[in-house]
């Protein structure tokens, strides 16, 4: 089975800054692979069989090391989509760029059986790219998956909803988004590390993808951040217990006051 995995490198710490246009300044922070994307990657490595796993990421040009660490884990091909014109992309602009990149990788979509993604990134937390990408590529999709199997050519998967777990079935090709921790990512092997050092990372720019400037990044994004404010409202006038005994007595009162 041939599988594409879309991943995002996210800041490992939350000390991000933004410029006046509210574009994240990603230069100064350490990047890690988004947790849910690690699950998608591991699921792909387990499902690929005699096929291949291609990783695609859109981000700054320095994503090389992180991608190489994935090649060392058994990924067959790593593609870095990078261009200044992509900065500030919202989910729609991101999905559009990814869809063009996916199409550029194979002669047609039949070359791929599955596209796996994480269900959301820990920085933006929208989870919107997988469904948007699916629509742009005209593929069926399922989000929030905790388990994937194959049964007689069909994808059989479990999807986590608020009210319970749904069991679903669909054909290929399709786009699936996975929940974090559903498949813990394997470690790299020494052999893998050696092999990865010799492998090429494919880099794609806006021009190589044939995208116009106004189709990408901030310019190609329908949504725009107009203002950023600090902490949300809800600051209360806290009373701090003088000592633990007083605190315990108050806690008992409070619990007794709740009508059950």
């Amino acid at each position, binding site marked *: 089975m041939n599988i594409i995995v879309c991943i995002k490198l996210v800041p490992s710490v939350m000390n991000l800054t933004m410029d006046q246009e509210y574009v994240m300044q990603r230069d100064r922070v350490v990047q890690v692979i988004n947790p849910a994307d690690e699950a998608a990657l591991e699921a792909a490595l387990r499902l690929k069989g005699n096929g291949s796993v291609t990783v695609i990421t859109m981000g700054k040009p320095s994503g090389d090391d992180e991608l190489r660490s994935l090649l060392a884990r058994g990924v067959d091909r790593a593609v870095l989509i990078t261009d200044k014109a992509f900065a500030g992309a919202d989910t729609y602009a991101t999905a559009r760029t990814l869809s063009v990149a996916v199409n550029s990788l194979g002669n047609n979509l039949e070359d791929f059986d599955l596209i796996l993604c994480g269900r959301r990134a820990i920085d933006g937390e929208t989870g*919107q790219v997988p469904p948007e990408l699916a629509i742009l590529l005209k593929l069926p999709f399922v989000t929030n998956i905790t388990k994937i199997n194959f049964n007689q050519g069909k994808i059989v998967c479990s999807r986590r909803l608020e009210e319970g777990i749904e069991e679903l079935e669909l054909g290929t090709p399709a786009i699936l988004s996975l929940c974090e921790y559903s498949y813990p990512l394997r470690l790299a092997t020494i052999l893998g590390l050696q092999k990865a050092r010799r492998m090429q990372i494919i880099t794609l720019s806006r021009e190589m993808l044939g995208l116009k400037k106004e189709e990408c990044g901030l310019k190609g994004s329908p949504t725009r951040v107009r203002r950023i404010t600090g902490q949300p409202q809800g600051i209360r006038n806290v009373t701090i217990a003088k000592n633990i005994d007083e605190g315990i007595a108050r806690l008992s009162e409070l619990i007794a006051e709740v009508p059950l």
Partner: protein
Amino acid sequence: MITSNDIWVIGDKQIKYDLALLSKAHSMAEVCAGKVFAVMLYETDPDYCIRAGADEVYLLQGLEKIADDAAIAHALASLLRENRPGTVLFQATVRGRAIAPAVAALLSTGLTADCIDLKMEESGLLLQKRPALGDSIIAEIVCDKLRPQMATVRPGVLEDPTFQEKRTGKVSIIPIEINALVTKTGFMPAQSSELLSEAKIIIAGGVGIGSREGFEYLREIALQIGGCVGASRAAVDAGYAPYTWQIGQTGIAVKPNLYIAVGISGAVHHLVGMNASDYIVAINRDAKAPILQYADYAIVGEWRHILEQWFLSYQERKVCI
């Protein structure tokens, strides 16, 4: 047909939240002189929708058992192309957050995820507020060049619906034919998450709890006092508690009478899920933890010691009664 300032609310399964969203849409529609349309994906009494604020109700038939979000999105997108409302709102449930982006992509327009507040300008421009960067900031997002402008809204963050008894409205039944590529073969209901949304007392733990065993202890205490146990995302991420216990932006939003935050530092994505609680108690060993600012009462100290001492006194009192 040109785009109107009408607001469409796509209702998906949880009537309580759908009605709250309709009331919100109604007050926003008054600002921009639009109408409110309730588009219900499930069978429901349209009178409630009208009384909560809908001017028209579309009951879509034939979708109840459909698990193919792309197919549902196609059906909604063709309705939206015919009617061209200025604004489309969804619930930020797992399903809403799958269907809405698919609709947005079909209409080549913008979508803001998981809003915690919305404000309509006279011009019909929607200001969409959402927490971002996991911490510390609220982004105000607009979709100023394209229509419809779309948002998913976090269930539970809006005020309860207001009902106007004498409101009237039009109801249309729209049968939808779906060729589903995704089929549902089974369903296992969840255990504790529903209880959490209805609980009157919640004891929620954070990373400060330190272990699974610690969470078992919290759960035991919660059960004893007729409450429910919850967890912060950090605690779930650390593997101390299951996802179904998660309270906050990416978990469940709660509104209990009493919320006891134990060993929770108070990241914004947690606060948005619980700061509607009537009364908040923070138990934390760090007197400078952000959660204290958002609490009504705080006890500074080791959580285990505090809860054990309290529990002893609780049991003694129970014996006396």
